[in-house]
């Protein structure tokens, strides 16, 4: 093979790999990303039911009800809007009223969010950043990251 031919094969191979990657990334970004909203953002968006979403907020006090089996219903709030959530399964260790959670799932036509996973973060000082931002905006933010400093 000539020098030119070898170089062409190399460049062609690189371009093919690149094209493959770009194609895959664009395809995957169209279908496989999940948007994150706070309950009030969700209320403004008026989304069609069925889309996969991630909602972050606080577990509203006094609104956790345990049904039969492992069914749990609770309300995620950012103190402006509330969202009813239904979940079947085990709740994480740090799931508590007033704590920050992130729920993954889909919005059902009846307006209830069907979660298939509930995350409560590992550190009790932790709050989903977006929720913290939302709370700060509304002026009801209580703690902040520097509380540990003396």
């Amino acid at each position, binding site marked *: 093979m000539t020098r030119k031919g070898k170089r062409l094969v190399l460049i062609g*191979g690189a371009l093919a790999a690149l094209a493959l990657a770009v194609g895959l990334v664009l395809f995957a970004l169209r279908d496989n*990303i999940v*948007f994150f909203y706070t309950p009030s953002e969700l209320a403004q968006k008026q989304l069609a039911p069925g889309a996969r979403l*991630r909602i972050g907020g606080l577990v509203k006090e006094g609104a956790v009800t345990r049904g039969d089996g492992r069914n749990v219903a609770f309300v995620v709030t950012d103190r402006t809007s509330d969202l009813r959530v239904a979940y079947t399964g*085990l709740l994480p*260790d740090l799931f508590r009223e007033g704590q920050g959670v992130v729920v993954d799932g889909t919005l059902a036509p009846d307006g209830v969010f069907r979660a298939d996973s509930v995350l409560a*973060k590992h550190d009790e000082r932790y709050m989903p950043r977006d929720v913290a931002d939302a709370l700060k905006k509304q002026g009801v933010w209580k703690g902040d990251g520097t509380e*540990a400093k*003396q």
Partner: protein
Amino acid sequence: MIVETGHFALVLALALAIAQAILPFAGARLRDASLMSVARPTALAQFGLVALAYGALTYAHVVSDFSLVNVIENSHSLKPMVYKVSGVWGNHEGSMLLWVLVLSFFGALTAVFSGAMPDRLRADTLAVQGLIGAAFVAFILFTSNPFARVADPPWQGRDLNPILQDPGLAIHPPLLYLGYVGFSIVFSFAAAALIGGRIDAAWARFVRPWTLAAWIFLTLGIAMGSYWAYYTLGWGGFWFWDPVENASLMPWLAGTALLHSAAVMEKREALKVWTIFLSILAFSLSLLGTFLVRSGVLTSVHAFASDPARGVFILAILTVFIGGALALFALRASALPTGGLFAPISREGALVVNNLLLTVCCATVVIGTLYPLALEALTGEKISVGAPFFDTVLIPIALPLIFSMPIGQLLAWKRGDLLGALQRLRAAFAAGVVAIAIFAALHGAPFLSVICAGLAIYLVVGAFSDIAMRAAPRGAPLRSIVSRARGLPLSAWGASIAHAGVGLTLLGLAATGWGVEQIVAMKPGVAYDVGPYRIAIEDVASRAGPNYAETYAVMAVREGDATLARMEPAKRFYQARRMARTEAGIVTLGLGQVYAALGEQHEDGTIDARLYYKPLVLLIWLGAVVMALGGACSLADRRLRIGVAARARVTTHAQAAE
């Protein structure tokens, strides 16, 4: 006093690092041997000083000196000793100090083992290493001082985050940092080569052992982190595509590509510029990872605390080093002597395919990790990019890469024989097809698992085809096979073993498709089916640990009527932080595991539990250990030890004489 000594040592280390960055560099420009000779002693002294600082902080943690903010926030007098020692790096300041310790450790190692290197290359390399050290020591001193005191010390500390109080903390971060930061040496070598404008096969031989060493540690560190997450988070997952995990995967992918391209450069003097680029890329991605984890851009268990000043400082370091290195690359790369071209069907060609696919994998991981950050910064939309994205993108790229691995091993340098290579892989193809048939009959769906398992078996068998052909040509007697196998270069064994390790990991990943997951409300005494086993709670009780209280269940794992093993999944409550933590119960049966995590306990005595049966799951991590073993084998190859070769020959003679 000890603490102040440590603090002072760190300040001295900064001064020395600055000297190490300037003097040898100036010496190399002025061709002044005495200036260049400053590099080695400063690198050694810098390591000594950082080690002293690190020792001082460890001392403060061990004796629970609650006059230090760092100790107050992360320690507790009742905390077990192992977590007092490893808790030093279980927080932002301490982990940055460990980072710098590892950085200066590699600098010192280079100073010791660079006897055979040209003076100017050594001086420039250590100067760049010194510059990196200076930047990060300054970062610690100015934004994250671990030695800060408080005016009136409290009686008790706040304890370490319970999730970190685990043997994994003692192992995972040091290994990961040895890998992550180990690439700094390779980066310094690349920068030195660009500054000096000289690059040849000898350069590749200097760089390869460091790349290999960093790669081995990074492989082990990632595997350890993954296993830790698996047993500690209580949902049985081992990889969450969390940006922090991706941060360690990106340099690994770039480093793996670098290992292979350095081989081409060493043997054939080709791909020089590309190898330099990958050397820069690997450490740049390590820096990017450090930025993502330490700046507070991300919220995760790894981001101990966030402070905007830190983020800006690290971003500045990141910009200077990555930008500087890439600018240097752009200016000087065209001046480097270009390597030769080669035929597409050859070992070199196969390694180029490997490099293309690995860098493409790396690029997609970078995109998947940074895209949410970029989108949020630009539009305010918050998205999460998780497993579905990475599965969709990486599987189609990884499978051809894995398929081509044994083929590449069988192609000769310069001009390979593709048909011949495929013919010599007959055994591997046959093994793969048989494996597909067996797995399909045993488990059936999912399809992807069956295909991947077959591919894994093909890879393991194919990885050793080359060795087998060379050790056992047709009709060779048994004794000659053994002596031939021992005579093969260790690097050939290393490549085969590492490739087989990839195969084992792939088999473990494929087998996740055949696992069983159950969430049940368990009544004590009743046995529940999980895969081929039955699990029953025999007892539920409470006990107190050193700094926690726990409720645990004794679960029997049965097969038929026989009880195979017992496990004790627990829920722990740590008083100091008022935090709960789930302790999974795990029983290893063969290469598979039965895994149980407790949920809530109800008033009627039932306990919610997640029960998993995970066949072959241990292979995921054992494969990584085998990969690291292969790397160690390559590292032991005499070819890589320039200057040591002569001495090694003398020892062989001495052994023969015994």
